[in-house]
């Protein structure tokens, strides 16, 4: 790969882009590259992804493939990082560890150019080190890379802080407050979590998210729940729930089918969280939202009638 010819870098709007996308985009832009991010997920994009994916992979991965396809021909290289995690108890799902290889093989015929870098949990590297390596791959000067990373990191921190603040403000409102708990790429994808968010809001609820909570505080809190749970994102989700469980009226565990880490962790959460109404929703590639609407409406009824002290039939 001749990195010097790279002018435009494509970022698929899927998977960890929903967690680290701002950092990536700003970093590349600070180094003088153009960045394009694929559009919002849609049925068409999912269908395109499904066609290329193995049947048993998860819905978010199928959607991710759709996003990669949307970028084909529009950029010089597609950024697909290998995200393993930084420590052995704060790892990522194996899907992220293999992501560049999967993308490379799935799109072998298209001969797509992938820009990648590894976040490895088995070697003691910090995030700044990962970005230094990435900058060097792009043949940028070490000093420029350090500066670009520092500025991008600051930018991301600011966005995260603003989100936390907005969420804190929501907690003071009198609406029914629903905490949506799940992987960021499920919660905020237009075809997944945002559909749920829309249904809840139509029913008059305020919606909060587990990823709009300080990541550090959430991860720290998750160790009260489990010492040996190996997944970073599930730690952030768990911590986000524990820090807010007493402040919200209901919690919805949103998972996309099939998710291995969620299957284990959510089952444990359901068994341990007994003081707040809790709903488990699993999203799949099915068309239509009627089933979801019934489930959400029933859940909202449970919360509202409980608050009201019962149905009118008792007097």
């Amino acid at each position: 790969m001749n990195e010097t010819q790279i002018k435009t870098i494509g970022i698929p709007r899927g998977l960890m882009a929903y967690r680290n996308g701002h950092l990536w985009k700003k970093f590349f832009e600070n180094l003088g590259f153009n960045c394009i991010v694929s559009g919002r997920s849609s049925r068409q994009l999912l269908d395109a992804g499904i066609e290329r994916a193995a049947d048993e992979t998860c819905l978010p991965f199928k959607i991710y493939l759709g996003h990669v396809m949307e970028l084909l021909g529009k950029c010089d290289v597609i950024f697909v990082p290998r995200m393993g995690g930084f420590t052995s108890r704060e790892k990522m799902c194996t899907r992220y560890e293999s992501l560049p290889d999967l993308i490379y093989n799935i799109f072998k015929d298209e001969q797509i150019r992938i820009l990648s870098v590894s976040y490895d949990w088995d070697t003691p590297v910090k995030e700044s080190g990962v970005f230094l390596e990435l900058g060097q791959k792009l043949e940028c000067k070490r000093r420029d890379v350090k500066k670009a990373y520092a500025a991008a990191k600051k930018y991301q921190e600011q966005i995260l802080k603003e989100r936390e603040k907005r969420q804190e403000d929501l907690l003071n409102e009198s609406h029914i407050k629903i905490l949506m708990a799940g992987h960021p790429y499920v919660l905020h994808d237009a075809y997944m979590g945002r559909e749920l968010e829309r249904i809840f809001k139509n029913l008059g609820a305020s919606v909060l998210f587990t990823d709009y909570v300080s990541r550090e505080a959430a991860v720290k809190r998750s160790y009260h729940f489990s010492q040996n749970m190996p997944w970073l994102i599930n730690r952030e989700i768990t911590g986000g729930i524990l820090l807010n469980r007493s402040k919200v009226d209901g919690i919805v565990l949103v998972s996309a089918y099939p998710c291995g880490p969620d299957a284990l962790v959510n089952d444990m959460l359901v068994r341990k969280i007994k003081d707040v109404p809790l709903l488990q929703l699993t999203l799949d590639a099915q068309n239509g939202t009627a089933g979801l609407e019934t489930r959400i409406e029933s859940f909202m009824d449970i919360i509202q009638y409980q608050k009201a002290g019962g149905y009118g039939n008792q007097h």
Partner: protein
Amino acid sequence: MKEKAYIGIDIGSISTKGVVIDQNNTFLAESYLWTQGNPTQATKDVLHALKEQIDTEKYQIVAAGTTGSARKLIGTMIGAQVIKNEITAHAVGTTTLHPDVRTILEIGGQDSKIICVENGVATDYAMNTLCAAGTGAFLSSQAHRLGVDVEEFGAIALKAKNAAPIAARCTVFAESDLVHKLQVGYPREEIIAGLCKAVAGNYLNNVAKGKKIVPPVVFQGGVSKNAGVVKMFEEALSMPVTVDEKGHLMGAFGIAVLARESGVFAPFSFDVADMDFITKEITCGKCANHCEIICVYRDADLIDAWGNRCEKGRITA
């Protein structure tokens, strides 16, 4: 002046239920028939049946409610004041008739659910998510294979000394298991008892997984009419299981109670049963989501439309 009455309709995938109640929640009329894939026609038939049973000189229906999977369509059609999900409708109906109930088990034609109740209000629920194994549709198809009417299942199952072990986790496996049991010579009643046991076991291991089943337990939905399944539930739970005589109508009853409580009254006319309703499905092409939008027409006039994910697909009457 006429006495006030309230109508509730529960349109499920397999059956459509309707009731009319008075001010004191007393049943004035009831109807239960097969949806047969046509919720509009089934509702019209239910309305005709209800109309014949009530004294229109004495009662005036002032509020209507719909529930079940076709609640929105039928609610629009009959101009219902209350359109609510079946979980709430069942919880309200059951707690009205059984104020002390703590757990509601429900097995219908194509789905099943559990509702946990505390102090007369639902606190938690679960619905089957993956398939129809162990529901009424499953029992009907197995009854057909055995050449027995599904209505006779309960009585036959109670006669069996033992229940044949049948794997009911999946309909496909259950069916091949059943054939195998027949070939090796199990008596028919033991197989039927086995099916009933499998339905109860499947329900407790799937839908009710992780839920605490606290007595008093009320079991309803079409399958509750099967005495064999009731017995298997009682054995598995080691507690009595109540089946209400009106259990199959509980959703319709609950939504009628909610219509009464809504306080929003407008005279309801059975004339809707004779109007022409047509639904059309359009695939919206205004963005990449291609939403399926359902349009409902009454006597050729568009009265409502839904199914769009965004404003672009909005169609107004």
